[in-house]
């Protein structure tokens, strides 16, 4: 077959670049390009022009698609806030139920500065029910959420009529968050800067006083084995909270060492969260 001239190749380049050329001329174009730098330059320019034309013609629709996605994302954010508002109402109902059951002393009064919702934590299984002293230590959970993270605040309030001491971060400190639903992701949390697991410290609680534990990124577990939880799909989720800490009504002495007080576990009612 006769080789192609530069003019003929130039004519065929757009179709060759777009993959529309017939097989025979394609082969001839390739043969020509192999030894003609000027046509290779022309080929590069043709490809660039085709890409520019594609972008020029499609950018408008792409922009519309992007703006739709952004609007959906904004709406999802608003829906999430609405869900949290729902959860807050749910929490209020739970608190009322506790009131009706005569457990009012377990419920902490709401505090304006607490994020979004409050749920009274109640004792769970029989073996986890705290003794009389620790029974006076209700706790509550607050959830707050920004676009990418879910935070939790735990309040431990001393409802007893005497001073209580908490060994926060000490041996036995553990926070369990049971998040269940259609898509739960748990990734190891490398940070140790989550207050419940930060360096061991003693918390002295006067009667009626509260201690707040902010827990960012739904980090749970115990020191050295922390995980961060998040949801990955829309749907119905439940979140259970269980917090264990050593509690005593006498200040620690040197001989207490690692075994100050007794481990008490507080279990919260399940929160139901509808993720849109």
């Amino acid at each position, binding site marked *: 077959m006769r080789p192609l001239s530069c003019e003929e190749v130039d004519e065929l380049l757009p179709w060759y670049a777009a993959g529309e050329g017939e097989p025979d001329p394609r082969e001839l174009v390739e043969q020509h390009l192999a030894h003609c730098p000027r046509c290779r330059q022309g080929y590069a*320019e043709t490809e660039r*022009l085709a*890409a520019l*034309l594609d*972008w020029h013609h499609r950018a408008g629709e792409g922009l519309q698609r992007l*703006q739709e*996605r*952004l609007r959906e994302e904004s709406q999802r954010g608003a829906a999430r806030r609405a869900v949290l508002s729902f959860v807050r109402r749910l929490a209020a109902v739970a608190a009322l139920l506790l009131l009706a059951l005569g457990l009012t002393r377990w419920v902490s009064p709401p505090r304006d500065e607490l994020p979004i919702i409050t749920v009274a934590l109640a004792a769970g299984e029989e073996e986890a029910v705290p003794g009389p002293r620790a029974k006076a230590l209700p706790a509550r959970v607050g959830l707050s959420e*920004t676009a990418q993270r879910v935070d939790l605040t735990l309040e431990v309030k001393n409802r007893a009529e005497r001073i209580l001491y908490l060994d926060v971060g000490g041996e036995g400190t553990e926070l369990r968050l049971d998040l269940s639903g259609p898509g739960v992701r748990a990734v190891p949390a490398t940070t140790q800067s989550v207050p419940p697991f930060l360096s061991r410290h003693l918390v002295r609680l006067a009667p009626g006083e509260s201690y707040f534990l902010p827990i960012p990124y739904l980090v749970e577990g115990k020191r050295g084995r922390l995980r961060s939880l998040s949801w990955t799909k829309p749907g119905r989720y439940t979140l259970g909270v269980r917090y264990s800490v050593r509690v005593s009504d006498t200040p620690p002495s040197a001989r207490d060492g690692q075994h100050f007080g007794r481990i008490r576990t507080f279990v919260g009612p399940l929160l139901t969260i509808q993720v849109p």
Partner: protein
Amino acid sequence: MQAQTREADADLVQRTVRGDGRAFELLTTRYYRAVGGYLLRRVQRADVVEDLAQETFLEAFRALRQGRAPENFVAWLYGIAHHRLGKWLRRRQVLSFTGMPPEEIAAPAEAVLLEEAEEQQILLGRLEAGLAELPEETRRLLALKHREGRTCEQIANEVGRPVGTIKSLLSRAYRALRERLSRAESAEKGRGS
């Protein structure tokens, strides 16, 4: 003028941070084509460019909604685009296709980024000017080809003309546009040297 744009951007950024979604929409209208043009320089595929541009803006939007307000929005935005592009290139292992050494892809200077983006903007401007000079019918054929993704044969069937005529009209348009772009670039180089 540039300072005014930057100020207007900063205002839109602050409004986005405060939760005003409409403000970010205005930023997308202002920069979507330009960011795509910048990406196109390295990846000459409009479908990939669209994906990367969308990811870029979504990432920027999420960061702003988390309260992160950059000092220079445009440089920051191109930085995100560049980062996304680098990830895509590494994933596809097409570094040789772009002819760019890996270190250039990995660590762009802000000034270089903005300069490249501006060059692409100028190039797109020239293309638009060239298109405006073409006959209406040819522009329609180009739209069928490049917006709808039709082949010459499909276009011929749609407009009821022989395939040869369609190819000939499009070839003429491509040549005119190519010449216009390379002429402008030669003039630019002449001024620069």
